[in-house]
């Protein structure tokens, strides 16, 4: 575990140094993230000028949800997506061979090999939103709620990671998988709203086909005290199963891999 964290830190430092060469792009990235956030808030503002609660979610609770959306989205786009996109590229070009010959676990290396540090901004914005929503509500969540939040946040990230890893692993057989990741990104945008506002078929897709519901709605439910024990247990179980399944699939795929360069 210590080695893994050290590796992550090393990759992080390398990309930080790489990006620090372009200081002007810092402000551009800040502007982009702020415009994103402003758009989301303005839309929510208009919606709540016509209603007091959206299927039981009040304005401050929805703000919490958007906070989680930015937090998880930032984490996905900072580490998971860049790494997976690069993995697909490596499979196509045959450079995955070099990753496989390294002495660390290949799945881990592939997962953290590329970090887009600017997405840290989204994570910070998400945290700020969560703090703001809590202040607005005026009641701090209890320790049990915070624990449930942390657990579901972790489980949600694990589920998304396993899902994206599964898709990226398919590139061992099908070469053009980067397009599939684009679909995932646009589906993730639907997570800006609690999944219970969607009609049944769309809710089912967002829960079981593209697991956006577990990543955003469930942690937000934990923080706003509407999570049942059953959902909590189910989410944790699903996360464990998803991680195991994607790991097994990765191992299977690696055995299948013959290297395009040789």
């Amino acid at each position, binding site marked *: 575990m210590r080695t893994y964290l050290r590796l992550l830190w090393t990759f992080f430092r390398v990309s930080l140094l790489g990006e620090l060469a372009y200081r*002007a792009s810092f402000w*551009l990235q800040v*502007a*982009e993230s702020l*415009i994103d956030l*402003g*758009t989301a808030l*303005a*839309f929510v503002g*208009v*919606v709540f*000028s*016509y*209603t007091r*609660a*959206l*299927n039981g979610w009040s304005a401050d609770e929805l703000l919490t949800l958007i906070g989680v959306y930015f937090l998880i989205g930032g984490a996905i786009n900072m580490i998971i997506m860049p790494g997976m996109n690069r993995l697909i590229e490596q499979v196509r070009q045959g450079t995955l061979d070099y990753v496989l010959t390294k002495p660390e676990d290949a799945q881990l290396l592939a997962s953290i090999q590329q970090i887009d540090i600017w997405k840290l901004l989204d994570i910070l914005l998400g945290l700020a939103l969560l703090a703001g929503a809590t202040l607005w509500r005026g009641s701090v969540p209890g320790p049990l709620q915070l624990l449930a939040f942390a657990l579901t946040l972790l489980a949600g990230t694990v589920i998304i990671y396993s899902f994206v890893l599964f898709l990226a692993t398919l590139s061992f057989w099908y070469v*053009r998988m980067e*397009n*599939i990741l*684009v*679909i995932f990104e*646009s*589906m993730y*945008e*639907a997570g*800006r*709203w609690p999944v219970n*506002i*969607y*009609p049944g*078929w*769309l809710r089912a897709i967002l829960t079981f086909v593209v697991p956006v519901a577990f990543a955003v709605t469930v942690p937000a439910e934990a923080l706003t005290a509407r999570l049942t024990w059953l959902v909590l247990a189910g989410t944790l179980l699903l996360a464990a199963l998803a991680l195991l399944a994607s790991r097994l699939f990765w191992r299977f795929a690696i055995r299948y891999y013959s290297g395009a360069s040789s």
Partner: protein
Amino acid sequence: MRYLIAVYRQQLKTAIAEQLQYRAALVIWLIEVALGPAVSISVWSTVARNEGGEVNGYNPSGFAAYFIATMLVNYATQTWVFWEFSRRVREGEFSPLLLRPLHPIHADIAQHLAYKILMLPVIGLVTLLLWLAFHAGFTPSPASLATFLPALLLAFALRFTLEWTLALLAFWLTQVNVINQLYVVVVLFLSGQLLPLSFLPAPLQAATAWLPFQWMVAFPAQLLSTGLSAQSVVAGFLAQLLWLLIGLGLLSFTWRRGLKRYTAVGG
């Protein structure tokens, strides 16, 4: 004129052949296009149901019709010249285009038309699916339906002219992404894509009256989803024509200034 038609035919053929290489991209595009309206319809239908079935004169099936109509209009009018232009200028791709004996805008128009023709089956399928899934209720009168197509054509001409002009900013600025993103957000709110214009706060509604954006999306979309009175139809057409003239003036002015300014980067 005959010469121009021949040019367009060739450009269309090339662009369609180019696009046909990416058939998988069509499916992805289908999901992306369908998702935006599906989310908007869900959100506003929920608001309507929470408020007793109706807000501002829209019930869930009214919202469905409105957002499906905006999706169609947006598909027909949207352009991607921004992203093209900044790349063209940065990478020096502009120089060969300028050497051709014809204004480069024609190639761009042809390319956009080709893409839209090619996507027609996809957008038709998305429309049908959304219509059935959300029980959309379209209620236009035959007269307003008849004016939809000309309004749509003018909307495309207007939007293309304005966005092509704005894209010319790439001659002066090398980093235009933030400007583009801001423009996209402004259009999202003020053109009626994100919500019907009558839902905007009063000051923003006042602003839309003085800006060209609602004539690019909301006007044709309303003709299709609910229909408009004869008076508003006439006013809408006049506004579209007026803005189109202003746009064309701006375009030729900016184009001439930009060309003087242009020194190929990397070429």
